[in-house]
């Protein structure tokens, strides 16, 4: 039996497969459709201090090789999350990582404090990367100093592991990643969606109510994969790959580029059973490759010596 568990940022995940924020809701929506014991962690929908209505519909468009969304961070807000959704997520047989987003470092800090002190919360994901929320000045995800301030504030507010989710859209993602690491992030999630749009030629109107949305799905994979490769050379903290993963081999590409774990989002929409397919495939590959723990794949494409860290359970 291959041990599929993996340790990232001090959290022991049953498998390296995490479910991406915004695609699984708070978890229970997929109860009965996904075997959560095979999910390393779910990342809940990004929560903001106050409830958000989200963007004007339509909010979805299909693209060849993916999709656009302009949800606009519709969520129940911190109070609704704490009083209802977090406990529901906590009842699932997997770890819960809560995604949070504020407008200022102080808002991030109070979100992290309130969510982090709850027993259901295994870790926090700092969403500094949502493309669907308009900001006045330079977007947070492109600003190393801004991100450092957010991570510093979050770090003071909680002892729980902090996952910093980056945007692939920043001109200098490396500086943002390094600033996040220096400020105390425990892991990076690489990365969120790219901005895009589509136009309906019959109505001559943008397909999304918000005009622009975030591109996810297979079309995004090569972009975010290259980022994982580059960032894993310049930061020491573990990387969680995200973008377009829908098969075992996609996940392995991210791991071989330097990721310790990975997230699946868009692929759930066509098939919630993608979780089983990917996890079964990982086990098969590991057997074929004679690898007894999956961390053996991390960075394998770089031909560097990667010591296979045995997990504590062994």
């Amino acid at each position, binding site marked *: 039996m291959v041990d599929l568990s993996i340790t990232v940022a001090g959290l022991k995940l049953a498998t390296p497969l995490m479910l991406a924020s915004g*695609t699984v809701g708070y978890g229970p929506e*997929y109860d009965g459709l996904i075997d959560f014991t095979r999910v390393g962690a779910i990342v809940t929908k990004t929560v903001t201090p106050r409830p958000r*209505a989200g963007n004007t519909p339509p909010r979805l468009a299909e693209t060849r090789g*993916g999709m656009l969304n302009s949800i*606009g961070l519709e969520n129940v807000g911190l109070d609704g999350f704490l009083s209802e959704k977090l406990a529901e997520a906590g009842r699932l047989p997997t770890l819960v990582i809560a995604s949070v987003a504020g407008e200022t470092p102080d808002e991030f800090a109070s979100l992290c404090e309130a969510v982090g002190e709850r027993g259901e919360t295994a870790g926090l994901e700092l969403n500094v990367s949502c493309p669907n929320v308009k900001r006045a000045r330079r977007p947070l995800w492109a600003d190393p100093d801004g991100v450092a301030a957010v991570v510093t504030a979050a770090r003071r507010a909680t002892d729980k592991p902090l996952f910093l989710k980056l945007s692939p859209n920043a001109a200098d993602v490396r500086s943002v990643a390094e600033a996040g690491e220096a400020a105390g992030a425990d892991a990076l999630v690489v990365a969120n969606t790219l901005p895009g749009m589509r136009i309906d030629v019959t109505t001559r109107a943008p397909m999304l109510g918000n005009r622009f949305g975030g591109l996810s799905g297979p079309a995004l994979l090569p972009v975010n994969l290259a980022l994982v490769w580059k960032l894993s050379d310049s930061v020491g903290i573990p990387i969680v790959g995200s973008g377009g993963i829908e098969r075992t081999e996609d996940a392995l590409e991210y791991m071989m580029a330097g990721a310790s774990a990975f997230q699946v989002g868009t692929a759930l929409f066509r098939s919630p059973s993608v979780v089983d397919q990917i996890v079964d495939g990982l086990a098969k590959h590991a057997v074929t490759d004679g690898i007894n723990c999956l961390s053996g794949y991390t960075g394998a494409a770089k031909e560097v010596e990667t010591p296979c860290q045995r997990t504590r359970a062994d």
Partner: protein
Amino acid sequence: MLLTCRLLTQFETVEPGQFVHVDTGPERTFRRPFSVAGVTPAGEVELLIELRGGGTRALAELPVGASLTMMGPLGRGFTLVDARAAGAPSRAAESDPRAAGAAPRAAGAAPRAAVVAGGIGVAGVRLLAQRLFESGVDTSLFVGARTADALLDATLPEPDAVRVATDDGSRGFHGTVCDLFTAESVDLPGNTTVYGCGPRAMLDALAVVAGERGMACELSLEEMMACGVGACRGCVVSTVDGYRTVCKDGPVFNASVLVPEGSAMEVAGG
């Protein structure tokens, strides 16, 4: 096209108005939602599908006996009026004070139903019409389409009872199905529940007429869907309580909670 699907795992119950979410192949990121248009005595699910784009074409090209992946039944369906409970308001109306207050009912008279469908909207009300007939509810059926060829009245349980409208006048009433309903509903009592499925503009117009007649009204809506289970918030429509998902809170909504499309009341993005 009528697609009959034998299920490996039988649905326990299907509410009329609920839908299935169908995987039409790896070329398409999203599944495609289709109303459960019927359930055969053997428990097979019937889908009535209009060809639109790649997904529906892929289904049309499937050979007989091919296997498909779908999930369901999903969403909230129509609330059936109860023929025995004289004057009883529908469940949805009961839980919604706005609707209950708006519809004065003739005490003692058995509740009636009017089913109004435009285009492929017939698929969304076919099972409903069948259940209404089975339970003995006095039901009027109205079906519209652009042309006589596109009319789907023949797929309904009692096709002879259906009143039809075509936009080009090639069969039946010349005009929209909502105009037909407006003309013919004058004689229907106030305790008639109006059920609608079709293009959004038709449904918004129907809600106005039903409101003027003091009738309860339930409408089945369509939106582009990703997850189909309420997780992604992609399929929302504006209601008086804010955005609600078509896949989980709907697809059937009480007309009194819906904000008509394009109206100034629509929730501003933020």
